[in-house]
């Protein structure tokens, strides 16, 4: 709830009216900046990007407790998406480095202290890690914004607190991982023991680099596993910093290894490694298929996948239109539209469609785009040139397929990867923009007549990650909730991401669940222990 209210305070743009005193003080700065950045920002505002106040200290691979060069000695550049300039050169991991990292993790699991540490001690290390994250919020959020382009306020005030919160959540699970005693048909004592699964390979994306790092690492460590994390090549910096804090918190060498590198090389090596016991991947559906195949072809390691989406946001006839507009806008444009659960198909009931469309367009026009380090900025640049080009291509496709471009559609400035908040109307399910995941600031608005129709259309997709439902009617809410084939339904809200709420997809949006109690099972083996009972008092 707290995270949700923080998000909604950011999405509402009414920072000054927030109850948080720190947000109020920021609000004053925001009010001044607003006259400059209100609406699509001008090219002039982007010409002098703010110099980030953090030094890039960690650029090497973290293997067995040490920051080391890659075996090949190669590096790759990581870029500032505001300008396309190089931030730093980072050691480039490949199969050989994955081998070294897995071997360290293997040793730390098989011999090392971590799985043999008491659950209470493991929880204390994770609690400490969460405290250190809180103490280093500024540096971490700065790295995150610099490397990713997301608004600094979002990183510092929403994401970092969610991260420490999630780490504490799993710290609290460490000493409560319970098996069962199981009823038997005959005189037997039956128990289930939940054991750590072993070495977990974890491949994370670039849209929420540190949050995804936490989602993967915290539950795995709470259960007593060791991990090898491959970060996205676009955003290697924050995880390397956080890993240092993990060590400071008392994680033994080899328990957490971080390898920067590319998917086809480092990622593939991890997915196909014979000594990795479990693989967790968040990213595109296309890559997820490859990862699953590699696991199948090698040691049949179990895989959890959190993949793409084309999530419907359904505005029913009884909705409060103003709230629905604001929430639908947030559902799509949050994080530059780079969310796997983005509400990228906005279904609006015909009775409120015209009003909704007009207000949605006005809201997009008001969205402030610019240097993400500037206070009050809602939208920064897209992550990289590849994504930028892909989004622009989809915008052209939308126009060509006959959708109405209501606003936006152009790049902003001539440097960096800024795109105007874009709204299409008259979209139908045959158009590419309503089928494919765009992963950018492009909202598609579709009109519907009745509930059964919108259920059918909303489910006409290969994805099934999330959905939003906007209605005050209890029966409509319950019917839609059960009928939508998705892993999360947000009713009259969106993107509420508490640590305890499980998240994951139906269909080709993936398999397994992260967060909540459900995530623990991804990192545990269940061992049944059975022994006969002699003359038991009862069975």
């Amino acid at each position, binding site marked *: 709830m707290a995270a949700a209210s923080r998000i909604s305070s950011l999405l509402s743009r009414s920072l000054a009216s927030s109850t948080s005193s720190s947000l109020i003080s920021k609000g004053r700065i925001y009010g001044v900046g607003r006259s400059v950045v209100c609406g699509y920002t001008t090219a002039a505002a982007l010409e002098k990007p703010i110099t980030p106040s953090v030094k890039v200290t960690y650029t090497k691979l973290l293997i067995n407790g040490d920051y080391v060069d890659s075996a090949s000695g190669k590096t790759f550049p990581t870029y500032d998406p505001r300008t396309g300039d190089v931030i730093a050169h980072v050691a480039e991991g490949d199969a050989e480095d994955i081998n070294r990292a897995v071997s360290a993790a293997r040793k730390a699991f098989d011999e090392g202290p971590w799985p043999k540490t008491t659950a209470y001690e493991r929880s204390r290390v994770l609690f400490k890690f969460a405290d250190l994250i809180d103490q280093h919020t500024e540096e971490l959020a700065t790295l995150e914004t610099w490397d990713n382009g997301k608004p600094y306020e979002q990183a510092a005030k929403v994401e970092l607190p969610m991260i420490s919160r999630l780490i*504490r959540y799993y710290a609290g699970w460490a000493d409560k991982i319970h098996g069962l005693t199981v009823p038997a048909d005959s005189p037997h004592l039956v128990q289930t023991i939940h054991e750590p699964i072993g070495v977990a390979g974890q491949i994370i994306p670039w849209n929420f680099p540190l949050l995804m790092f936490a989602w993967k690492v915290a539950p795995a460590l709470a259960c007593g596993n060791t991990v090898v994390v491959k970060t996205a090549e676009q955003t290697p910096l924050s995880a390397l910093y956080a890993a240092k804090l993990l060590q400071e918190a008392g994680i033994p060498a080899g328990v957490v290894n971080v390898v920067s590198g590319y998917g086809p090389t480092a990622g593939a090596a991890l997915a196909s490694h014979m000594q990795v016991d479990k693989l967790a991947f968040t990213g595109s559906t296309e890559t997820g298929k490859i990862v699953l195949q590699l696991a199948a072809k090698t040691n049949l390691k179990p895989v959890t996948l959190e993949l793409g989406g084309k999530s419907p946001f359904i505005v029913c006839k009884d909705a409060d239109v103003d709230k629905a507009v604001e929430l639908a806008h947030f559902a799509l444009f949050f994080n530059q539209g780079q969310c796997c659960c983005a509400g990228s198909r906005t279904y609006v009931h015909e009775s409120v469609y015209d009003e909704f469309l007009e207000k949605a367009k006005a809201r997009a026009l008001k969205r402030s785009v610019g240097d993400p380090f500037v206070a009050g900025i809602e939208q920064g640049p897209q992550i990289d040139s590849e994504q930028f080009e892909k989004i622009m291509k989809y915008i052209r496709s939308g126009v060509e397929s006959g959708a109405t471009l209501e606003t936006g559609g152009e790049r902003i400035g001539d440097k960096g990867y800024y795109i105007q908040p874009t709204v299409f109307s008259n979209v139908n399910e045959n158009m590419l923009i309503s089928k494919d995941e765009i992963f950018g600031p492009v909202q598609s608005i579709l009109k519907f007549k009745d509930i059964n129709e919108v259920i059918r259309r909303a489910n006409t997709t290969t994805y099934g990650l999330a959905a939003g439902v906007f209605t005050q009617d209890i029966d409509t809410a319950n019917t839609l909730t059960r009928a939508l084939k998705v892993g999360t339904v947000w009713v009259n809200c969106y993107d509420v991401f508490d640590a305890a709420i499980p998240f994951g997809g139906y269909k080709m949006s993936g398999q397994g669940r992260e967060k909540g109690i459900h995530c623990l099972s991804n990192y545990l083996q269940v061992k049944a222990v059975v022994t006969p009972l002699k003359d038991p008092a009862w069975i």
Partner: protein
Amino acid sequence: MANHSNGNSNHTESSFKIPPIKFTKLFINGDFVDSVSGKTLDTIDPRTGEVITKVSLGDAEDIDLAVKAARQAFDHGPWPRMSGSERGLIMLKFADLIEKNADELAALDAVNGGKVFALCKVIDVAEASKALRYYAGAADKIHGTVLKLSKGLHGYTLREPIGVVGSIIPWNFPTVMFFMKTAPALAAGCTIVLKPAEQTPLSALYYAHLAKLAGVPDGVLNVVNGHGHTTGAAISSHMDIDKVTFTGSTEVGRKIMTAAAASNLKPVSLELGGKSPLLIFDDADIDQAAEIAFRALFFNKGEICVASSRVFVQEGIYEKIEKKLIEKAKATVVGDPFDPKVHQGPQTDKKQFEKILSYIELGKREGATLLTGGNRVGQKGYYIEPTIFANVKDDMTIAREEIFGPVMSLMKFRTMEEVIKRANDTTYGLAAGIITKNLNVANTVSRSIRAGVIWINCYTAFDVDCPYGGYKMSGFGRDYGLDALNQYLQTKSVVTPVVDSPWY
């Protein structure tokens, strides 16, 4: 007889200085206040029988004020309206503050309860932080269930905090008991009126102070010192308390339950007395068995409800076990609990001291053989020698009643079937121990003994994740573990029709 470092001496042999007593009043609605009557209570140092300090003496009127504060904090205050994670953060801070003040807190329990200072610090006070951290981590994991109802209905359960909790705790583990009750209640979002034992109020008041420093809002945790028949009775019969949790004697537990029944039918959980059996089989390792058996009874000078006060030894190894136990009793150093050489401090108060000595007399009179001990130590304070009786019959008073002191009863048995029957021949059912290498014996006895916790090849192996409580007249309800949360939660079912669902 046992060694002793002289119970008469003050703590000259200890380099530790007992800190000045900072908190002596009642803690109500976030403030330390005098009792309404202005009365005070002497709190005694069991090493000498002398007064440590005077503390405010609460009565029904003070309980009324405390309940009013707790009611207000529950009905309108922030505590149950915070997220579990926010409550958890405050509890984590509380745990850190306890760790920072561990020496001072351990000293309070040692001087007030006669507990060995060094053990109190590493066991009792450490356990307090651990319990707070455990339940801090549980506060955001209180799940209801979404139900599988008949066609056409959707339902779920909410687990809501039960409200104002009355906690009445004993004097044998002032710190551990405080958090055994308080930590899960805080995690659940309840508010609390706690009465510490009149013998040991000092650490509870200090914890109230630390709770406030940690950010526990005013009115959420109230501590009222006083006697059972006045202050305790006011809690158990209060119409505005939603739940009472009590640890203490079976006799008092019965009164509390009666008062709850006669007033507002508040649910009660009781953790009461015991006469716990320890069963040592022929295949046991002699040294290990003797060590476990000795600690199982003499830990905390026998003032522990799970004390293995009936030690059944199989005849094949009986003589050897008896010999080892006598050696251990004689090697025990009784004396000032602040002295690092001391194993056993004084009993908590004069009443207990006299009661234990009278049981020892009774044991002798009824024909049990006194193997060692049996006397007071020194002329001052409440020190008693570690005492072991042999040839104890199942129907002797010392084998039937809870002595709550350093008095062990040894019995001999022949077969497993026989010892199961004898072990269960008690009105109590708190704990039991089994020492054997045989898997079948371990499993069969575990299921056959009617007790809330079975320790196999260990004893007093408490863990905050391990539920703890009694069968039969040892009480009902469970402390510790996630089960303890049930004491402090209500379950509410929410049901609504669902139309046009694609599945049921």
